[in-house]
């Protein structure tokens, strides 16, 4: 009887040992999977943050370029806007009418074509097609 009991205990003991090892194995693999998942999420968030920052920087640059173009039309030319066309990420295009004195010159970093021009008594009027660079 005692022998039998001891045999059962022995088997049970083995079984328990195996179970414990198995559990430890499961624990290790699971922790690895979870940790990997954590790193993945973290990477994804970092990537999205970078994208967001990039988006903001691009947006700021775009606004700066647009403002520069508008300021050029406002301050450097005595102009009247006829049409303005802009598609991201290309440069802006504008058709403007300008009123200048006779034989006046202006410097610009933008490309432009003179569509038509004519002179009045003391001034000259021209329609320009300005392309941003």
């Amino acid at each position, binding site marked *: 009887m005692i022998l039998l009991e001891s045999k059962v205990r022995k088997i049970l003991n083995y079984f328990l040992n195996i179970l414990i090892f198995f559990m430890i194995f499961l624990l290790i693999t699971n922790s690895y999977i979870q940790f990997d998942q954590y790193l993945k999420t973290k990477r994804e968030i970092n990537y999205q943050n970078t994208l967001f920052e990039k*988006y903001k920087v691009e*947006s700021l640059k775009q606004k700066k370029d647009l403002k520069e173009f508008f300021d050029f039309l406002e301050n450097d030319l005595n102009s009247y806007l006829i049409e303005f066309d802009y598609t991201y990420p290309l440069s802006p295009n504008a058709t403007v009418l300008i009123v200048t004195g006779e034989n006046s010159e202006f410097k610009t970093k933008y490309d432009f074509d003179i569509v*038509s021009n004519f002179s*009045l008594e003391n001034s000259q009027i021209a*329609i320009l097609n300005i392309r941003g660079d």
Partner: protein
Amino acid sequence: MRYKFLILLFLLILLLFLKNYDFNIKESSKIINSYNMDEDVLDMEKILKTEKIINKLNIKRNDFNLLNIKDDFTLYVEEKDFELDYIENIVDIPSGETYSFFDDYHIQVEDIWKNKKKFRSMDPEKVFFSGVVNENGEKIAYIYFYESLLSIKENELFGDRKVLKIFKDGILLINSKNQFEVIM
């Protein structure tokens, strides 16, 4: 023997806990300042201050007429959205920046007529001005056009040219390229 059961129980709890644990990485929400674009109002302040990227911006003066430039515009704005869970922060800012190139502008036709000799005239050998008649307050001009006599009124179309104004010594026309032409 007993403590082996305890270890087993402890491991089981640990495993269950680990399986169900959800890593919640705390992230501060993103804010993009954006403004309600009203397409009827030309508000450059909003366009230049929004933190969203503008995909398309089109501003066009309505009924463009070289002599009478009106401050009436059609505006089209299209924004590029950012695909991420962010809080879109719509704030309304008062209109501020306005540009003077949106103003209206008028050219006196008489000033243009003073420079009539500088403008191109339509075939001066075959097309010339004959005279002007005032009929019920409306000017009707007569021109010889390749051996036939034609009558035209102001604002009428003459081929692809528009009659801008009839003077007592000629007619001022504007062509489709916005260039002036005269018949004298």
